[in-house]
């Protein structure tokens, strides 16, 4: 494992995109920053620009309108990077599947522009912050194999 890969595992910077979520997953994402969970212990921080990010945290169903924007944001991230699909909606569009305003699910949307994208699924409606931390740890484990 290269030094930079080790460093990448130790310092994942997260950029959060709301792709049409009901805000329930988003407040759970914000809970990760609070004293109770404090993901900065693992070197993870929320950043303001996708250019700085290593993790794209996507919440929401990915509507038709946001689909090209989500792809654009993904393209703007420097590789290697990881996509975190948070919540039932981001995993498989949840109860909104087959609704008229749906684009493709988040994983399909991302894979349309980058077939080798690393996508981690966090099921739940909304997932607990613990589940997101577990997903982040799984992502770190996967990055070891790069």
């Amino acid at each position, binding site marked *: 494992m*290269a*030094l*930079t*890969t080790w*460093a*990448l595992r*130790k*310092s994942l910077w997260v950029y959060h995109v709301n792709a049409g979520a009901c805000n329930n997953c988003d407040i759970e994402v914000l809970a990760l920053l*609070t*004293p109770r969970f*404090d993901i*900065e*212990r*693992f*070197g993870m921080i929320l*950043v*303001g*620009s996708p*250019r*700085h990010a*290593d993790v794209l945290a996507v919440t929401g169903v990915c509507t038709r309108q946001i689909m090209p924007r989500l792809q654009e944001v993904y393209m*703007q991230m*420097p*590789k*290697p990077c990881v996509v975190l699909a948070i919540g039932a909606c981001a995993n498989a569009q949840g109860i909104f599947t087959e609704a008229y305003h749906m684009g493709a699910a988040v994983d399909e949307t991302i894979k349309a522009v980058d077939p080798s994208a690393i996508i981690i699924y966090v099921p739940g409606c909304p997932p607990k912050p613990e589940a997101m931390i577990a997903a982040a740890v799984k992502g770190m484990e996967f990055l070891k194999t790069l």
Partner: protein
Amino acid sequence: MNPSEIVIWFIGAGLGTLLLGLLLKWVDRKVTARVQWRVGPPWYQPMVDIIKLMGKETLMPVTARGTGFLLAPVIALATMAVAATILWRSLWDPSSPFLGDLIVVIYLLAIPALMTMLGASASGSPHASVGASREMKLLLSYELPMFLAILVAVARSGWTFQLGGLVTAQAQTGPVVFSISGALAMLIAIICMQAKLGLVPFDVAEAECEIMSGVYVEYSGPALANWLMTRAMMLAVMPLLLVEVFWGGLYRQAWWGFLSFLGRYVLLVVLVVLIRNTNPRLRIDQTMKVFWFGLTPVAIVALVLALIGQAEGIAWL
């Protein structure tokens, strides 16, 4: 100094300041976390961040002008290394540095801000251009009171524009800060230092949740790492400048001299962090008002007091 000695000083001071700055960044993040009742990152976190960014790709926006965009962070980093070398050298050996090195350091410390503007403008992003315009206004705001404050120390030390001369003069008459004009000047310099470091309440240029890291919005990978290193070195260099100019520098003849230097240095850093954690961000117009109509008159009063004190021979004024 012969050339090889200069090279050794440059590399040693540059790398040392970089490591020290990254460690101080950790102090910043840890104290912030403790203020917010969090645990905070491990001590090596800023260094890991830099290593990670070195391994990422550098994306170039379609609208960017490549040369300026990529050259700006490199020049900023190199400038900080030169400034750090001059400051550490004059701290270690006050008798050796060249004439007028204080003025050179003041100019060098302004270059990272100029390069930030250049890089941000070259990136072609609207967020970055808003950030660049704010950075420019910020620079115009704090440079004048900062220079007046330093001028107080210069006036009290018999008009020497040499860092070594300032330190030697303070060794004879006592630190500048232990006088009315000196204390006022130091206070102003601390607030200007906050603005120069781009920390809350003066972080308008890169306001994270407002214009998305503003000036740095388009930077990624090694170029962003360069900016982070420049800012880390700035965090190490600015308290050093203040300790040298206002607070007596380093007393090298006894072991407690090093201890007292370290204490003053860390005190200034922690002060910066606490100011950053207990204040909201000011708008750019409020920032300019604070500096131009608040701090500049106070700095002029301090300078007048210092001149009267020098002319009448009153040491405490």
